[in-house]
């Protein structure tokens, strides 16, 4: 289990996360929600180790993540930042093969097993036909799928995605959320930062609600997603109805 204990992170002199304790349920899809600047991305960065924690720790199955080597950590947990830099002149296949980095020996190239994993990741994201295309020539939706394929090739138990739907149109957002559900069905634990609250409720099993660097609530949408919470966290007046398709709570702003 991925657990965060008493985590505080300071950034540029001010505290961004304050004494945060969260446990991510295994085998589930967890949505991380909260207003802009509440520390969601910072939390992901602290989990991935790219930001140092002032106090507290992040542990995976009881093991402190900072004790693991870079490669060992990357074999257990993958993370897709909000806006990764699309390199010029790299093909989709090459990008996806970067996901195999944690498994490569310093001098060795990709093994047949690695190539098989890359092949599978391309197939699972429907990118087989686009494998030789340059990533910088793809549309937004295709490009996001290529990043997801890279994460799939990394083949980790935990997958953290920072606002994966932000730059996509609605069709591609739904496509991506369904892909996330598919990944979950194949046994992955996912943590996804989302802005669309209704999508968070519809596709995710567990919500983590944050405000100003602190935890407000964590539980299933049915239990915690209500108008009081929306008022408290987002300063939003809304009514909650039942989503007739997914049978999950759904908010309608007033």
């Amino acid at each position, binding site marked *: 289990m991925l657990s965060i204990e008493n985590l505080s992170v300071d950034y540029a002199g001010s505290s961004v996360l304050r004494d945060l304790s969260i446990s991510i349920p295994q085998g589930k899809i967890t949505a991380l929600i909260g207003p802009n600047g509440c520390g969601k991305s910072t939390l992901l*960065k602290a989990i*991935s*180790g*790219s930001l140092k924690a002032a106090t507290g720790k992040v542990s995976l199955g009881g093991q402190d993540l900072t004790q693991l080597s*870079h*490669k*060992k*950590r*990357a*074999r257990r947990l*993958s*993370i*897709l*930042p909000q806006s*990764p*830099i699309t*390199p*010029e*002149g*790299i093909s989709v296949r*090459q990008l996806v093969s*970067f*996901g195999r*980095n*944690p498994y*490569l020996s*310093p*001098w060795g190239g990709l093994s047949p097993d690695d190539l098989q994993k890359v092949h599978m990741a391309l197939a699972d994201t429907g990118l087989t036909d686009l494998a030789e295309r340059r990533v910088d020539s793809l549309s937004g939706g295709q490009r996001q799928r290529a990043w997801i394929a890279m994460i799939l090739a*990394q083949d980790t138990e935990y997958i953290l995605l920072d606002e994966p739907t932000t730059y996509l149109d609605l069709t591609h957002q739904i496509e991506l959320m369904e892909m996330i559900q598919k990944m979950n069905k194949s046994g992955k634990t996912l943590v996804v930062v989302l802005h669309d609250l209704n999508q968070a409720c519809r596709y995710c099993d567990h919500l983590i609600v944050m405000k100003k660097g602190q935890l407000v609530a964590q539980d299933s949408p049915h239990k915690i997603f209500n108008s009081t919470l929306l008022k408290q966290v987002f300063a939003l007046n809304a009514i909650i109805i039942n989503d007739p398709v997914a049978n999950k709570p759904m908010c309608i702003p007033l």
Partner: protein
Amino acid sequence: MTRHTQLLLSGFSLLILLALLSLIMGAEPLPIKTVLQTLIEGGEEDFIVNQYRLPRILIAILVGMGLAISGVLTQGIIRNPLASPDLMGVSAGAGLAACSLLLIWPDISHLWLPPVALLGGFSAALIIYLLNRWHNPSPARLALVGIAISAFLSSCINFLLVLHPIEVNSAMIWLTGSLWGRNWDHLWPLLPWLITLVPFSFYLAWSLDLFALGEETAGALGVNTQGLQTAALLSALALASVSVAVCGSIGFVGLLAPHLARLLVGSRHKLVLPCAALVGALLVLSADTLARNLAPPLELPAGLLTAILGAPYFLFLLHRYKGY
């Protein structure tokens, strides 16, 4: 054979041809037959071919490779199209250190040149790092700080040369970069550095590809980003400094070669590195061959010729990346 391997092979053949041409041409042109014979069994022309032209050609090739690879590493880590050892003060710092050493102890062994130049290059880089550490500088700003520091260090070189007047051709080495009078004594001190640093930079190629996705993504993929940055920048620093130690700062090679290589083979470092190395070697060797042959027996400094090509390209880059 892929298109890229073909390209690298033709680049290599071109380099061999150019080297042969450079052996033939000079103040005293030699027939190719004599050159080949002398290369194998010595003879009457041994001095011109084996002692004068050959080491100079080899140094041009090594220095071109060193500067080019240094440029690829710097641009890969700083992710700045304008980054290169000479635009960041490293070359001027290394040049000042090497030049001071030779003016103060004219008889010192040439083996001391690379480490002393390295110290100079490192100090210049440290100053630039300290000047930029408070905020993440834009590419143009970083280049500007580097150029200012370079200008200051170059004027220190000028001042030293005024205080200790030396023969004009030797002075040219430190003023614009030149291969004048370089021989086997200058080649040997260079060799151990390049033999270790060039393969090491190839070893970093895959990680540099991942680093291009951004520090955060690379870190998430298991790259030790801080370790990579340190290793690549120190190697870049050392490659540029030892090159400068031998023939001064041959300008713009570290900027031009990586850009040309990316244009030719794309952005994967396992291709960019060898391609840039070839381009760099071709650039410096052709500049020096031209420098020797434009008005023999008079010599032009090779650095002047690379600057004629490099300065307009730098202006073009500044224009292209205006938005930064």
